[in-house]
């Protein structure tokens, strides 16, 4: 027989297990009680989810961006002071002035 659909159908029919499936389902749920602490754990998780955020420390994106901008600006100014303000030419001028004033 080459018909794979028929093979599959027959295999499924052999695998059929109505009673065991029903029994397993009954065993899964019958007479079961929620384990101790479970209802409270679920309720706590639910209440924590529904509670409004506590006032005070609410870190929104604006202050974070502002702080980051300040850090970048300060680093930039430092870099400028170190690398741009004192160019080699400035340094030469400075040493010339120093030598001029020296006796």
């Amino acid at each position, binding site marked *: *027989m080459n018909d*794979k*659909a028929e*093979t*599959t159908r*027959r*295999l*499924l*029919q*052999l*695998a*059929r*297990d*109505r009673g065991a*499936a*029903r029994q*397993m*389902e009954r065993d*899964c*749920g*019958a*007479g*079961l*009680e*929620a*384990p101790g602490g*479970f*209802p*409270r*754990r*679920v*309720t706590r*998780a*639910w*209440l924590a*989810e*529904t509670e409004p955020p506590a006032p005070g420390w609410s870190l929104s994106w604006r202050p974070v961006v502002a702080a980051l901008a300040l850090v970048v600006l300060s680093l930039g100014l430092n870099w400028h002071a170190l690398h741009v303000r004192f160019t080699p030419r400035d340094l030469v001028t400075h040493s010339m002035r120093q030598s001029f004033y020296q006796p």
Partner: protein
Amino acid sequence: MSLPGDPADAQVPGWIAGVRAGDPKAAEALVMHLYPAVIQVVRRRLPDRLDEEDAAQEVFLRLFRKLDQFRGGPDSLVRWTRRLAFTTCLNLIRHERRRPEVRWSDLGEAETAVLARVVTPDWESAASAERESARELVGRLLAGLPAADRWLIEMLEIEERSVDEVRELTGWSGVGVRVRAHRARRKLQQAMRRLMNHQEEP
């Protein structure tokens, strides 16, 4: 689980109202009342490696979030909860890594014997051991299918549930169940075709 005439049913509307008002005692009572219905679905559908209590907690959290949408009595609450448990389980394993397809060389003696049996004219007279092997083989073939397809085949073909029963548990329409089941059977047939082609190769 709630049975018709269950004395707890009379308290259910009060618990629902309490949960809607944010009362923790009502929430705990509702969890205890619905736990068997939830755990039944979770244990039946989720693989062993997933923690059933975590899954059950996820079901209840979804239930509390959606309770405002519920419009029904105590009986329909259990049905609604089971449906919610089913869809939660489906979401939890939607992205699971499926097992690779079954190859002929992976089959044991009993499984090859049952495949030899199904192509004979007296295939229906298979012994119980052969039927057990058929179940194992079908289980291995189903493991390569997405969870929704796997569960549909299990419910409709193995457990012989009616389309109405499946519709009630899944929340899909009758047509949706039939269409999905048709596609799932096609996928199973393809898996079977690949398996049998290996056998027929020289």
